């Protein structure tokens, strides 16, 4: 078949392209947080933008049951009196409310690592922001696919 389009084919293709564009347009705003998670991060960091790295978030890629999703967060730090992680904020961008938990560590913790089970209403990103004692911030985020939502839905 020669690589030229008649009118009908051309129309079908442009319609498909339009649909794709419309979908693309719908997906982009969906990536922005739907709840107060951005504000919570800003409040936590005092407006600073956290750097990527040092924080490790362990979550399943696919959570079958959003009612209880195991989550481990750990932050690289020597945890000495001179250099330690003071707080770690966990937020999610697709729950009705963004806040999940805040952990408070001290040099007495020895290691900044904690494991809890969280609720996720739908497929979304989980974000961890760590605050160091020197005032710097680090973050990590991880997308989780949720098959059954966890907020009584």
């Amino acid at each position, binding site marked *: 078949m020669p690589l030229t389009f008649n009118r009908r084919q051309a129309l079908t293709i442009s319609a498909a392209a339009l649909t794709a564009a419309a979908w693309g347009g719908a997906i982009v705003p969906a990536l922005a947080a739907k709840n107060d998670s951005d504000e919570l991060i800003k409040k936590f960091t005092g407006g600073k933008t956290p750097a990527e790295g040092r924080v490790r978030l362990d979550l399943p890629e696919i959570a079958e049951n959003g*009612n*209880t*999703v195991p989550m481990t967060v750990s932050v690289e730090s020597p*945890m000495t009196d001179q250099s330690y992680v003071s707080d770690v904020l966990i937020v*999610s961008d697709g*729950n*009705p*409310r963004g*806040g*999940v*938990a*805040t*952990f*408070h*560590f*001290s040099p*007495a*913790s*020895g*290691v900044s*690592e*904690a*494991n*809890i*089970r*969280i*609720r*996720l209403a739908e497929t979304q990103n989980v974000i961890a922001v760590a605050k160091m004692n020197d005032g710097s911030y680090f973050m990590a985020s991880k997308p989780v696919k949720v098959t059954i939502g*966890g*907020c*009584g839905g």
Partner: protein
Amino acid sequence: MAEVKPRIKLDRKQAKKGDLVEVKALVSHIMETGLRKDASGNIIARKILNRFTCTVNGKEVFSADFEPAISANPYIQFKFRAQESGPVVLTWIDDDGTKIVGEESLTVT
């Protein structure tokens, strides 16, 4: 509501000074989000354990603030560095101010 007894497990009862001790704790609690509605459309009141602290011999080693996004029957696992012997006290505080307290002992040599 009946007295809730948390289940707490330390990965060791005796530790050398400087060792990391792992704590696992589970407590029965509904963790009602305050966003759900009952059959007749009324909002079910929020009931959340919003604060958790762990002290060893009176000194705080770890604490956390919980939001409604924490699962029912909250489980928590964390570590601390053993410094001195004493009771390891875990406290959960409910929205209405009631406390759930659990205790284990740790001997540091």
